[in-house]
């Protein structure tokens, strides 16, 4: 058998739980602080405005292009390379009394001055109202997703575990958002999609561990909840690593080869999957223990005769 990890016996993962959850706390607080101060670099989908993507024959000098685009109705325009040095992305803000088409025409005129064979690859305009609605809807979606999952996990497992899993998810979402905020990466609709996918994926990991915890509570007659959680994490460790690895491989392929239009999406997944894997151990499981999960909570309802040795079950 070829094995990446081979554990002799159970690894005491929870021994490091206190310092690591402290680290988690720092990560979450740091992310929140960055979100509060720096905020998120909202993309076009959410703020509204116009984006023009141009492909030049030869790499243009961005400084000169900036100077050429110095026009009242274009003030505040952001010009940057996108993908390659020949590709340029220009972001225009919504201006009172100025039509998006006119802005695009001004940009094209200036670009043609630089290079008459410039190609307009993409133009996107989003009205400010639409963007605002989308931002509200997006926030709502993440919230609804978390609630649905809370309900499902409580139904399938137990409320302490459900709380643990939702805390882990909130942790993943906040930290991923935090990374986007600290690095000021653009947050658009595909990134939101990536974030929600992270929610689903991270939960996937958590559930695998929980499933084993439940099974072990029933199987292992001895041992404290911590022992059982440790054993469960150890047993599922190689699966967690392999699955994370294969998913990461494909996400890295998307990140490197998928092209600039889904770069943000791939970045969100990359962050989220790494954070999600770790949080399923140290946030989800640890919190469930802190909430006092015990063997009693795991018993199926019809367990009465088996549970005779447990006084708490017998009134």
């Amino acid at each position: 058998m070829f094995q990446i990890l081979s554990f002799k016996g159970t690894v005491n993962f929870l021994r490091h739980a206190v310092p690591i959850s402290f680290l988690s706390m720092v990560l979450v607080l740091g992310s929140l602080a960055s979100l509060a101060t720096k905020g998120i670099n909202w993309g076009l989908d959410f703020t509204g405005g116009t984006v023009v993507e141009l492909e030049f024959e030869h790499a243009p000098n961005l400084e000169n292009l900036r100077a050429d685009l110095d026009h009242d109705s274009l003030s505040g325009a952001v010009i940057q390379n996108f993908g390659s040095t020949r590709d340029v992305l220009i972001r225009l803000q919504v201006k009172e009394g100025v039509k998006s088409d006119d802005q695009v025409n001004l940009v094209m005129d200036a670009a043609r001055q630089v290079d008459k064979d410039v190609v307009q690859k993409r133009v996107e305009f989003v009205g400010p109202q639409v963007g605002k609605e989308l931002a509200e809807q997006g926030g709502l979606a993440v919230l609804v997703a978390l609630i649905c999952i809370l309900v499902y996990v409580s139904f399938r497992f137990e409320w302490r575990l459900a709380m643990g899993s939702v805390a882990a998810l909130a942790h993943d979402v906040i930290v991923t958002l935090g990374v986007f905020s600290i690095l000021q990466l653009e947050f658009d609709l595909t990134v939101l999609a990536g974030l929600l996918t992270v929610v689903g994926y991270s939960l996937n990991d958590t559930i695998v561990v929980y499933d084993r915890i439940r099974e072990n509570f029933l199987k292992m007659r001895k041992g404290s909840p911590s022992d059982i959680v440790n054993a469960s994490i150890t047993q599922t460790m190689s699966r967690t690593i392999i699955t994370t690895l294969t998913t990461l491989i494909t996400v890295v392929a998307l990140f490197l080869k998928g092209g600039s239009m889904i770069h943000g999406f791939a970045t969100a997944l990359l962050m989220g999957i790494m954070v999600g894997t770790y949080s399923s151990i140290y946030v989800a499981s640890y919190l469930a223990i802190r909430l006092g999960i015990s063997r009693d909570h795991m018993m199926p309802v019809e367990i009465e005769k088996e549970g005779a040795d447990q006084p708490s079950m017998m009134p």
Partner: protein
Amino acid sequence: MLNKYPIWKNLMVVIVLIIGGFYALPNIFGEDPAVQVAGSRFAEVNVSTQTQLNDLLASNGIDVKKSELENDQLLFRLAHADDQLKAKELISSQLGDKYTVALNLAPATPEWLADLGGEPMKLGLDLRGGVHFLMEVDMSEAIRKMEEAKVADFRSQLRKERIRYSGIKIKSRGIEIKFRNEEALSKAEFLLKRINNEMVFTDVSTDAQQMLLAVMSEEYIKQVKNDAVSQNMTTIRNRVNQLGVAEPVVQRQGADRIIVELPGVQDTARAKEILGATASIELHMVDQNADVGRAVRGHVPAGSVLYYRRSGEPVVLKKKVILTGNYITDAQPSFDEYSRPQVSIGLDAKGGNIFSNATKDNVGKPMATLFIEYKDKGKRNPDGSVKLDKTAEVISVATIQQRLGRNFVINGLTQVESQELALLLRAGALIAPVSIVEERTIGPSLGAENIQNGLSAMIYGMAIVLVFMLIYYRAFGFIANLALSFNLIMVVAVMSMLSAVLTLPGIAGMVLTVGMAVDGNVLIYERIREELRAGRSVQQAIHEGYGNAFSTIADANITTFITALILFAIGTGAVKGFAVTLMIGIATSMFTSIVGTRAIVNALWGGKRIKKLSI
């Protein structure tokens, strides 16, 4: 016996795989460059057009692979993409503007496959290039129009019953109807309530003034809004057809928005001009009693409005609309006996009735045609939505010579104007103005680039995962790889069957599915290894491995499915495409990784005495 599938289960796996393979098949044939020709109300395409055009193309050296006549549309598949534009131009100049000629990419699915319902996935705009518009219907305008109509109704209803009122006005809180005394008010309230079910009337009299307030009921407002959107959609669909675009999409989104997608369109300026042109006509009687001079100074009689002609000459018109553009079924530019341009207009039956009644009572009186246009001048409402400016202009004043029926003419235009007006009227009037609130244009080269990027990400990602699984799990890894490959085929097959649209995030979803789908098999295999380590027999380890992992896999996948469902609900366009592929991928991967691999494992090792497993 452990690890033996009943025949029906094996058969099911085989059948599912065959069906999956079959429906995925159309995707490998690619597309033919094609030119599509459709007729209109005034001209249809038939076999003779087909032969005529075939000859035309052949004589110009264009190689036609095949021409098809289906659903009143002609499709010419060309051998070379370079000929496409040339063929289109040849055909349009031959047929004239009564036909719609559009460039298309027709799936090159073989006929036997197509006959059995095989169709390739559709490519989203981000993969093929084109324009996406999100348009918003101005609801306040639709409601204002309806209120104006109500005011006119109330006037005639009250007058008919000889109930005296001292004024009717639209205010922000509703329509206010003023009376001189209480008796008139109660009589009017009784009458109006009986006739106008859709309005809610309340007595808002004060000491100084007897007054009735009429407000549209919630339900009626909903209906008005609904009608406004659906009528606008029909109109926009008609206009899109005039643009000559193959496979356009016109779809409703939410309460007041319409999505328009035009694949392959590059000339966005013209597309916008035609889609956004919110022009309509209204016919009003001229207020002959009004003193135009006094009106210009601001003393416009109640019930009338001051308008100007294009030449600047003022005209006072009655507020009441005799007829709106909504009833127009046909409008053609033509010339009168003095060769002056005019527009011949045809009305539908209802419009004809209304018009006939109105003109009967007004023979010998002047009637004016009002041309109304809403233009986006770049202004915005406080809430950020686009503010459209309304401009209204009298284009003609003519004396009604006789009772008019369903056909009449509008004159007093230049030739260009008459052609434009006819085009706009023919395409139907928008009941309420629309504005473009979102626009995305993707160039065709970017589309091709996106496909290329997506595919190479998929190939690299998948190759590494396959190699890894093979090394790590050996024989079982090979089985998982088979399942993974079939899973991809199944995703493509289901998407083709549902005619779902493939987008760039959709491809990303497929790539991600590849990475995540192995999870099912990893869970099972790790479990088998554990059981083997725990000293179980090979057969029992396999059995336990599959059995124990099942509920875990189900739980893990259901939660991912929930998030995908939420994404689908909130997402638009490309993100929806991602959610769809993710959902399909989860469903198919559960089948291939659990049932599919089990069938192979059972067939290879089930029921045999073996000591060691290649895992």
